[in-house]
């Protein structure tokens, strides 16, 4: 059961081979056993989960089950869930209990899925290693001395260690895809606007997008079927007809044009990652795909532009944390201004403070044109590069991250080195395009490598088709970390 796909779990539940109560308890036991070493979950509430599991069992008994009914799913602690502690990895929200459900949580609850717990993450999703969490770093199940990637590193570690069959993440600059790559999983960032941001704590609103994380592309399709959907409470939610993201999974890949950007195979790419990604490209060709060289000439500007746009939006979004309406408030202060200063100095960690300062500076009087406006123009150039590329190919394929998982603590002191982890994932966020990562082999230290697939707007079904066909021909996504006794 621990290694089963969501489809297999759904069938087992439907055929009464196992109840949701038993399945949920199985994963809760795994969490009890492994979370101490991996720190993947911030909050687990066994009783609450089991109540939901019982309700799912009743629903199954009535014959009213949907594909995810009774399946436990872990949620990144950025999604508000009613009556669940929701910290966003921050001291600022260490006492914040969700007063309502995020749209994504509503959707999973509506589908009859069970909330398995809230997963650890970089504070306010700002990071690529899950080390900036106030609740301590997450460890990579493949090597506990390494990071699992971030910011959705808790969700990644939970699935990799088989403490959860699936999880949610969010992706502002690569935060579902890079941890998926570093932890040997599949992760997807949908087209901007496909998944509602209602109840998802905001980092950079024009980039933030919730997405599923799981073992396989097929699982991602089933999760996305639940997560995606119009929500009038998010002004950027896209109002379009519902689709079945699993509909094209079994299509052959003959004739599929895959574009390979040379900019993503430059000096910064580690040799072991390059080897694995090249082998994956060859495999896709063997399955009938046609490889085309493409150019994304402004790709190298994506990190600089991102580190203007994301901090600028963050500095605005995080101004709400002032100790007045919710969250942490400093114990001692002289006056209102002093209360703000102390509350925010105490409540935010170093990386969050740093990004608020960058954002405050680039938006301050006299600098707007030189930074924010300039970054928005570069954002346009990056989106245009993709528009041109999609004239020549159906999917853009390359590495997800420049290296395999790195050791804990090795990049934490050097923000710029940390930021460069997301060099291949950030362009899709800036353009608003859907993108995903699937396991494609192992590199140094026997650590997983991820293959990055970017599609045109709303091409999720096509991406999932390519990923699923690749996973039918390979077994990288079935590998499990050694030392995680199953």
């Amino acid at each position, binding site marked *: 059961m621990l290694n089963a796909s969501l489809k297999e779990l759904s069938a087992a539940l439907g055929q009464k081979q196992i109840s949701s109560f038993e399945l949920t308890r199985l994963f809760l036991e795994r969490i009890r056993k492994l979370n101490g070493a991996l720190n993947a979950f911030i909050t687990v509430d066994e009783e609450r989960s089991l109540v939901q599991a019982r309700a799912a069992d009743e629903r199954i008994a009535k014959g009213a089950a949907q594909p995810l009914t009774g399946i436990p799913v872990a949620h990144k602690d950025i999604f508000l869930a009613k009556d669940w502690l929701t910290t966003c990895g921050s001291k600022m929200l260490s006492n914040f209990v969700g*007063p309502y459900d995020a749209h994504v949580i509503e959707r999973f609850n509506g589908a009859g899925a069970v909330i398995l717990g809230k997963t650890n993450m970089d504070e306010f999703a700002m990071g690529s290693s899950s080390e900036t969490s106030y609740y301590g770093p997450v460890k990579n199940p493949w090597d506990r001395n390494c990071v699992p990637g971030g910011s959705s590193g808790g969700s990644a570690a939970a699935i990799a260690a088989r403490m959860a069959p699936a999880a949610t993440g969010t992706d502002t600059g690569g935060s579902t895809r890079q941890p998926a790559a570093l932890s040997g999983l599949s992760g997807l960032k949908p087209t901007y606007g496909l998944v509602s941001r209602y109840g998802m704590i905001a980092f950079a609103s024009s980039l933030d997008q919730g997405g599923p994380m799981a073992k396989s592309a097929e699982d991602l399709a089933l999760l996305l079927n639940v997560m995606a959907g119009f929500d009038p409470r998010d002004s950027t939610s896209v109002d379009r007809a519902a689709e079945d993201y699993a509909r094209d999974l079994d299509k052959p890949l003959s004739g599929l044009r895959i574009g390979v950007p040379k900019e993503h195979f430059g000096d910064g790419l580690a040799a072991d990652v390059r080897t694995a990604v090249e082998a994956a490209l060859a495999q896709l060709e063997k399955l009938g795909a046609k490889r085309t060289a493409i150019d994304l000439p402004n790709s190298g500007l994506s990190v600089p532009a991102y580190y203007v746009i994301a901090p600028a939006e963050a500095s605005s979004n995080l101004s709400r944390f002032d100790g*007045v*309406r919710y969250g942490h408030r400093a114990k001692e202060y002289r006056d209102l201004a002093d209360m703000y200063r102390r509350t*925010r100095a105490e409540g935010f960690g170093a990386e969050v403070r740093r990004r608020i*300062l960058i954002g405050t*500076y680039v938006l301050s009087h006299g600098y707007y044109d030189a930074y924010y406006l*300039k970054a928005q123009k570069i954002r*346009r150039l990056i989106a245009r590069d993709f528009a041109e590329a999609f004239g020549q190919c159906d999917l853009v394929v390359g590495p997800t991250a420049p290296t395999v998982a790195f050791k804990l603590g090795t990049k934490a002191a050097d*923000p*710029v080195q940390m930021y460069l982890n997301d060099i291949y994932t950030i362009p899709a966020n800036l353009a608003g395009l859907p993108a995903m990562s699937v396991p494609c082999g192992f590199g140094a230290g026997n650590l997983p490598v991820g293959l990055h697939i970017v599609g045109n707007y709303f091409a999720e079904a096509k991406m999932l088709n390519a990923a699923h066909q690749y996973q039918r021909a390979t077994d990288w996504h079935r590998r499990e970390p050694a030392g995680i006794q199953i």
Partner: protein
Amino acid sequence: MPLSLEEVRRIAELARIGISEAEAAAVQAQLNDIFELIGRMQKVDTEGVEPMSHAQGSTLRLRDDEVTETDRRELYQSVAPQKDAGLYLVPKVIE
């Protein structure tokens, strides 16, 4: 153009984040590294390029002018650090 220590303190004040002297010096070095990275943008000619604020355009939806929210004051204030009689309490601002 590197940021001075004084500018770091001014930004922290604008952001309402308290910062100690020792921390300001460390933050100054890190911010300058980051601004060096960001500075790569300036070499690119973007004359005439339309800024992109958003992936899906920016038309806001309209809805009918009717009440959609119910009063949930008590629920939302249940997480407030300090409150009284339905009001959020802050330190006195007017003597």
